[in-house]
């Protein structure tokens, strides 16, 4: 097995999960209603646990301790897609981002249940069950708000247009795409994107929302190579500050 390809793949999954988990945790105490507060906090807790599990796999492959890798790297060493690091903004943007991201993550983990790298396949089986609830949550809100009032529809539509170029950046190809596919570690970003498109079309088709014409969108790339927006470093500083002041704290 090409270990470099595998590690690169695990890092990008772990970083996506950790960063979106941190953003979701920022809704704690800020949600528009109590249920949403709890939902985003719970999803954050799931995601941070899942990222820790991925960093543990990396540690078993010879990388540094999970805490060190999670909290001691700089922005240019992170491989998360830029979508995950964007600030939460208003609730409509967060829910649209959550929907676009979670749909991709659910499909990615599902594909990982067939990975030739057995520890990942095992973890994926577990995580898949958890993500079902994240998907359910995202779909429910998109379907409700996306067919409710004129205002909620137009706000969601605006957020969808804003998020879409970044969402396409989820599927930025890795330099090891061929190796990952050939060694059956992962079926590849192209395949994932196809599945993702048909999944989001299915949900959005039940609403008044319109998917922007993808041919006219320039995907925002770079995250997978460590080229990030200005929003990532402040997030990392905040995350590691909590870690540095309480080493060994539950996170």
């Amino acid at each position, binding site marked *: 097995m090409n270990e470099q390809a595998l590690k690169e793949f695990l890092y990008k999954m772990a970083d996506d999960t950790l960063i979106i988990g941190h953003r979701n945790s920022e809704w704690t105490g800020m949600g528009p209603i109590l*249920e949403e507060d*709890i*939902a985003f*906090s*719970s*999803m954050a*807790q*799931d*995601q*941070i*646990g*899942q990222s*820790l*599990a991925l960093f543990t796999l990396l540690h078993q492959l010879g990388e540094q301790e999970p805490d060190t890798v999670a909290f001691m790297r700089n922005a240019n060493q992170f491989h998360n897609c830029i979508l995950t690091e964007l600030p939460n903004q208003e609730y409509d943007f967060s829910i649209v981002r959550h929907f676009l991201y979670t749909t991709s993550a659910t499909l990615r983990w599902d594909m990982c*249940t067939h990975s030739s790298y057995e520890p990942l396949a*095992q*973890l994926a*089986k*577990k*995580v*898949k*069950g*958890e993500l*079902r*609830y994240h998907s*359910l*949550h995202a779909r429910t809100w998109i379907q409700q708000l996306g067919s409710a009032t004129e205002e909620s529809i137009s706000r969601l539509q605006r957020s969808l247009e804003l998020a879409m170029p970044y969402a396409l950046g989820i599927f930025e190809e890795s330099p090891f795409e061929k190796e990952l596919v050939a060694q059956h570690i992962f079926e590849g970003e192209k395949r994932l994107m196809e599945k993702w498109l048909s999944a989001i079309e299915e949900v959005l088709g039940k609403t008044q929302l319109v998917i922007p014409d993808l041919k006219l969108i320039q995907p925002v790339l770079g995250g997978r190579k460590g080229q990030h927006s200005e929003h990532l470093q402040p997030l990392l500083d905040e995350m590691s500050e909590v870690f540095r002041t309480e080493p060994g704290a*539950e996170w």
Partner: protein
Amino acid sequence: MFDSKQILEWLEEVKDPEIPVLSLVDLGVITRVEFKENKWFVDMTPTFVGCPAMDYMKQDVERVLQEHGIKDFEVRVTLADTWNSDKISEKGRLALKQFGLAPPPGLSTLIDDLSILEHVACPRCNGTHTELRSPFGSTLCRSIHYCHECKEAFEQMKPLGHD
């Protein structure tokens, strides 16, 4: 010399800190107790990957083993035999209900759109005139429901599995 049955009995005293009436054995979190190469191995698996109580429960298992005079042991957390909500024993399901938490429906009925969460039997009145309020509750493994008979909210230990 003791056997694994004896050890499982001792481990009955370790409870899930979030549901103090439910032992880890009944929850299905203890997946294996085995004597190998002069050493006892106890395997545990998390209900949710991010379960914050896992470290605490592991320490509790270690404490119980020590208190019963077992010297050579290793408690491992593993995903080799993953947890799903069907692993909760009958005794465990009853304990959940008495605690006021609806036990999870069997996974054979878990369909993909999770509409099964819509008419969960209320742990108070057993009625099914209930609705899902949120798939996320006060802990990772719970969902929030509302009973139209009792006119009160309740929580369920939600079904979790993989197909």
